[in-house]
């Protein structure tokens, strides 16, 4: 029981929730902030969602749904804004100062993936869930990196939280966009939007031509991934509806090869779509780009070229088998 709690994601989500409560409190008190009240409410609502347990009753899920609607209303009201985030009372020493930490600054950044790796490795050795192991490792890595950094910079925990609040508020409402799009995907799946689209693709697929069938399968994977924002959601629908019954089985193809190519054809779609917000839109805010579509504008050329490589890889297998 004790072990089950610690070896679970709930515990990591609670840590995030508590961090968000701190953000809400600091923003509420922030005199330089443009919308302190509404923004504080935003982090408070999101924090509540993060401290909730994994499984809830139907009423509980309805409540979460209402909290999500609340978050979106705050966004619609322009309620999520930033402040000036002054560095006092612990300003960083200026460049060139002997008290300024040097290359050691890379250590905390390296600790996070190192702990994630250790978590993945240990959970694999002990036959535990590797996803949870990696996530726990990452969380512990963040904690270890925080402690290390506080010692290195002689800052206090509030400075650490204030620095996190600055970046988190600069990202703003884009923070929840990936989760929101995943929820939209869940609604699409529940009401069967995917199967409507799959039945359309089934109607245009020619039964006699291997290359045409294969290309339509790859194209359907790319387009549906772009619409759903997630190659995993598209894969089950499209491979179950088109890939297996209309391509792999009738032409006697290698299922592993066609399956994995279908998945990466979907990834080409992920490179093209704003629906994959965490990969394509969130970096625009993180790197302070002027246009949130710049990443997609860069990626589309590789996505098209790589998509064309899919039938070529298949052809190499077909002629050398």
């Amino acid at each position, binding site marked *: 029981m004790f072990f089950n709690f610690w070896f679970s*994601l709930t515990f990591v989500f609670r840590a*995030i929730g508590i*961090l968000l409560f701190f953000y809400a409190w600091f923003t509420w008190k922030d005199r330089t902030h443009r919308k302190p009240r509404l923004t504080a409410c935003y982090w408070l609502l999101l924090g509540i*969602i993060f401290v909730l347990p994994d499984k*809830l009753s*139907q009423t509980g*899920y309805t409540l*979460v749904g*209402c909290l*999500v*609607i609340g978050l979106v209303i705050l*966004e619609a009201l322009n309620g999520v804004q*930033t402040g000036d985030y002054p560095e006092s009372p612990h300003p*960083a020493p200026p*460049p060139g100062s002997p008290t300024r930490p040097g290359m050691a600054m890379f250590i905390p950044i390296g600790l*996070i993936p190192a702990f994630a790796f250790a978590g*993945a490795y240990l959970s694999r050795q002990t036959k535990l869930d590797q*996803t949870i192991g*990696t*996530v726990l490792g990452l969380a512990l890595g*963040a904690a270890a990196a925080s402690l290390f*950094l506080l010692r290195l*910079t002689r800052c206090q925990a509030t400075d650490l939280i204030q*620095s996190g609040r600055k970046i988190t508020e600069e990202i*703003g409402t884009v923070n*929840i966009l990936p*989760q*929101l799009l*995943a*929820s*939209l995907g869940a*609604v699409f799946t529940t*009401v069967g*939007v995917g199967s*409507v689209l799959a039945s359309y693709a089934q109607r245009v697929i020619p039964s006699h031509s291997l290359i045409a069938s294969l290309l339509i399968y790859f194209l359907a994977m790319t387009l549906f991934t772009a619409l759903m924002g997630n190659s*995993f959601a598209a894969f089950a629908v499209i491979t*179950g509806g088109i890939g*297996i019954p209309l391509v792999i089985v009738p032409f006697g193809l*290698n*299922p*592993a090869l066609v*399956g*994995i*190519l279908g*998945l*990466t054809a979907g*990834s080409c779609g992920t490179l093209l779509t704003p629906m994959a917000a965490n*990969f*394509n839109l*969130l*970096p625009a805010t993180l*790197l302070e780009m*002027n*246009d*949130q579509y*710049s990443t997609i504008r860069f*990626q589309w050329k590789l996505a098209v070229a*790589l998509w064309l*490589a899919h039938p070529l*890889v298949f052809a190499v297998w077909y002629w050398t088998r």
Partner: protein
Amino acid sequence: MSPVYLLILTGQGDWKVLGIGIVLLGLFMRWKTGPVVLIAGITTGLLAGFPLVGTALSPGIIPILGKAFLDNRIITLYLLTLPVVGLAERFGLHQQAAGFIGKLRNATFTRLLLVFQALRILLGLLGIRLYGHTVFSRPVVYPMALTLTPHKTPPILEKVKAAVSACENYGNFFGQNLFPASAGCLLVFQTLKNGGLPVTLQSLSFYALPIVVTSFCLAGIQYWRLEHHLQTPSARSLPESEPVSTAPPSETTSTTAPPE
């Protein structure tokens, strides 16, 4: 004409695909993304005949949204890494990264991005999934890439930023399939098994290799072309040859009210 609209016009499809149309329209018009997504979800549910709240046996749209939002909290895990990144940046992580790459004589823009893409592929091969945009791109790779960019005009910087975030995506998306127990390989394995086609996880990772190699080479060409573009005199004086930005020009507006 897109298949979705064709379906509606010919009356063969179902009205519930209209939600996709709302999302596409909202993204195209750059309306606020959150409200667009929520309205699309609720519209889709209502068109398919679902109630808003529903009962315990047949849940309505709001509990479906709520459950999915709760189940997908893992996507927002990166929030936990932001305090470390933020404090390290305040104490000059960017300058350290820039100084470090400045000392390497053989460093070029292309080599830098390829090294990080290779690192992401390696992490994928080892089964480590993390959100590299916060851990690598912003604190480390971008300041390094900036050092290797000679003419820092706004359109050039925009492209450099886009290349840095694309580099993370390329390595992450395709590299993760090299790990046999990755979520992607498990999904392919399970879907094929359900369709009566058992395969081994190792064979999936094996067949993922050609696309990983191709993506790496294509990315190298793309970075090299950008590097070449960065160093030509036209990059600093002439206006951009292709239309780049339609977003608000000032950075303050883009951070306080994202153009959505």
